[in-house]
């Protein structure tokens, strides 16, 4: 099967997945106790005020209709207006259909920030994990191997906020090298942005390294008993060359998969770190929106998360195929 047909097939399946995810999320948020009107008005809510807000936002209509409206809009690329924005606009008397508060404009800068943080983390974490993994495979069962294993496992086992506060203590308080707050805004230069992002990126690096490093080590060691590795050794090559030139290219597929999974995690799962560093990413927006039952935003966030998983996994599979001559070049 050619790569192109694989891509098309997987993208088709991806659209189907997104559709199913949207239904599940829509139903799940609706099943949560309370809705946007109650969440907004809190304990002082009068039934009239709640009903007014519901009518304003269309929450009084049947769930199927609301989902269908959302779906038609989403299919055209319009993810609607966040309830919070719509409610605010109605309150100040603006037209709620104005573009000012659309979910897309709200989400885009947050998503860009999250991608920036994920990229900075990936640029640090992937080379480090691969290097430590390769060295651990080369010096397996040595002190280095054990230290690498124990320390990465320790960092992945500690809660993220704990790792984050330790880093703040060491790198921001005791040695004021980096800022402890990552308040990023428009108009910052790249260097400033990078400096502000470095501490959360380092925290996330500690969180994702263990997984990637251990997979690299295991995938390489798994191949060391193969006849072609023995052949490479019998050619008198150095152990480093045997591992990097002969084992690593054949171990790429599982490594790429783990890297993709971790990248997806960096895009979808970094709420805690964002909160600790006050980083304006998508995770925080998501949690806030769930809290106030702001369904359009929740839906859009979930679509972004699901797309990230689907695309990164597709990318991983394509790269795994490209890394394998037997799949890349037919007989």
């Amino acid at each position, binding site marked *: 099967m050619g790569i192109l047909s694989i891509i098309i097939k997987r993208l088709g399946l991806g659209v189907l997945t997104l559709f199913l995810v949207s239904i599940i999320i829509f139903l799940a948020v609706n099943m949560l106790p309370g809705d946007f009107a109650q969440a907004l008005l809190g304990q002082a809510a009068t039934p009239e005020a709640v009903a007014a807000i519901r009518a304003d936002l269309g929450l009084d209509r049947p769930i199927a209709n609301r989902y269908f409206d959302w779906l038609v809009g989403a299919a055209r690329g319009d993810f609607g207006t966040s309830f919070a924005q719509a409610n605010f606009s109605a309150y100040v008397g603006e037209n709620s259909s104005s573009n000012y508060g659309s979910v897309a404009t709200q989400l885009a800068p947050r998503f860009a920030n999250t991608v920036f943080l994920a990229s900075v983390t990936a640029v640090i974490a992937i080379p480090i994990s691969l290097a430590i993994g390769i060295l651990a495979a080369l010096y397996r069962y040595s002190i280095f191997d054990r230290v690498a294993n124990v320390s990465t496992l320790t960092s992945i086992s500690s809660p993220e906020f704990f790792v984050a506060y330790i880093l703040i203590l060491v790198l921001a308080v005791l040695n004021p090298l980096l800022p402890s707050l990552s308040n990023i805004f428009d108009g910052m230069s790249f260097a400033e942005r990078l400096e502000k992002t470095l501490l959360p990126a380092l925290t996330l690096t500690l969180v994702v390294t263990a997984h990637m490093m251990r997979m690299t080590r295991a995938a390489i060691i798994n191949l060391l*008993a*193969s*006849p*072609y590795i*023995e*052949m*490479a*050794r*019998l*050619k*008198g*090559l*150095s152990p480093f*060359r045997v591992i990097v*030139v*002969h084992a690593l*290219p*054949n171990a790429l597929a599982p490594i790429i998969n783990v890297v993709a999974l971790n990248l997806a995690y960096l895009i979808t799962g970094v709420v805690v770190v964002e909160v600790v560093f006050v980083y304006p990413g998508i995770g925080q927006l998501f949690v806030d929106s769930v809290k106030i039952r702001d369904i359009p935003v929740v839906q859009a966030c979930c679509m972004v998360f699901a797309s990230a998983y689907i695309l990164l996994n597709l990318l991983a599979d394509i790269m795994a195929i490209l*890394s*394998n*001559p*037997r799949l890349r*070049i037919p*007989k």
Partner: protein
Amino acid sequence: MTNTKPLLKIRDLQIDGISDETRSRIINKVSLDLYPGEVLGLIGESGAGKSTLGLAGMGFTRDGCEIVGGSIEFDGIDLVNSPLEKRRRLLGSRIAYVAQSAAASFNPSHKIMYQHTEAPVFHRKFSRIDAETDAINLYRRLRLPQPEMIGFRYPHQLSGGQLQRAMTAMAMSCRPDLIIFDEPTTALDVTTQIEVLSAIRDIVEQFSTAAIYITHDLAVVAQMADRIKVLLRGDEVEENTTRSMLKSPRESYTKSLWAVRSFERKQKPPAKTGATPVISLKNVTAAYAKNDPVVRDVSFDIHAGRTVAVVGESGSGKSTTARCITGLLPPLTGSISFDGTALPPDYRQRSNEQLRQMQMIYQMADTALNPRKKIGEIIGRPVEFYLGLTGREKRQRVEELLAQIELEPTEFIDRYPAEISGGQKQRIGIARALAAEPKFIICDEVTSALDQLVAEGILRLLTDLQDKMQLSFMLITHDLSTVRAIADEVVVMKDGIVVESGPKNDMFTPPHHAYTDLLLSSVPNMDPDWLDNLLASRGADNIGDAAIEKMNKN
């Protein structure tokens, strides 16, 4: 030769294997001398320590092996105690290795040429450009097709025989003084084997490289080696020049190895005309993918109490034919009948009785037996399923079956497959097939994973059982000596078509179909001049792939 210094000198070498804290001796005080330009054959059955000894000749031990005594000297360099770095400089450059399976020993991620030039460039023997030019010359010498291009392909794009020759070329890349050949032709078809053998011999002679040639096949070693050393479970049995060894082996073990090939059962008289065959295939065509039939228009009969050998090389469609008969692969067209009645093409539509009458014995007894079940359960399962016996009756039947395959029932019934030897496992496979009390058994390469002595025992058992129970066998094999030993009729297949069929004796006497002739002439025999004579009479262009290509053109 004796007045020069030996190139490789091994004295009283002892190697232990360590697994799960238990030590076992793999090599027990073996010594050898190898002089420059000489070829030493190492033979023995599996577990004799041939490969371990061969690798020790490079100063290399596999993980889990340890040199515990003795010395290895290569050209005056101590390979046991020298620093690792010094030993590593010899590997690839002065001592090279050719592995059993080239398909597994070439790295799938790199092109052949990259792997070929790796050692010379790494050891700074030649520049990459020079090494590439030299590689192309070697490929041409080894008669590889398109020598200028073939190196720039990935291993999966070459055939097994081509890879094995490319690996021999790779071993020559630094012009080593010594090459270890570890069963380089065992995994190949006979017609391919002969081509690789002649290529290896040519190149070893042309560059007067010394070699250790490891194999379990006496006829092969007879063609390749100047001297032969026989090993048995880590001990040296004897060593002599090839001709004296073949003419007059001294030790009884060596004699028994030699004698294996003499087993041959007389061909039975042909079945009466008009007799109903047990199995009859009529114009069977079958395919795995649409429009790409793997077997075409195959017809043959198997009569009661007779063995029909289906012979062919890998990819000839032998096993696919068997899958059609068992109903695992319903044929596209054609029919299969049992005792005169047509069988449903799909096994799911066949009755229990029809399934019972047809059993199978597999090539890898190791993987065909469930490792978590005791022998008694493995054999007891078909006894219960087909015959409905349970409890004491079932146990009694299992014991009878074990007795039939010449294993002591009380000793084996409660053992697990891991606790018995390869030959015994194959006997259990036979007992399991017999348990259903079938009329017809398909034997799929049943002896090809076994040592020759053990294989002979299995063949004798099969013929005894056949005589006692009037069984019919379909014997799938690529090994013509097995055919000679027990077949009554032979069906030769090539590319999914039956090219020749008939009684065994006719098969082995000329005139043959051209392909049968090629097959027969490619089986090495014990005469050390066999390969020379064959090459002299046919020419290098008329053996192996080249000959098959010519045949396909005609």
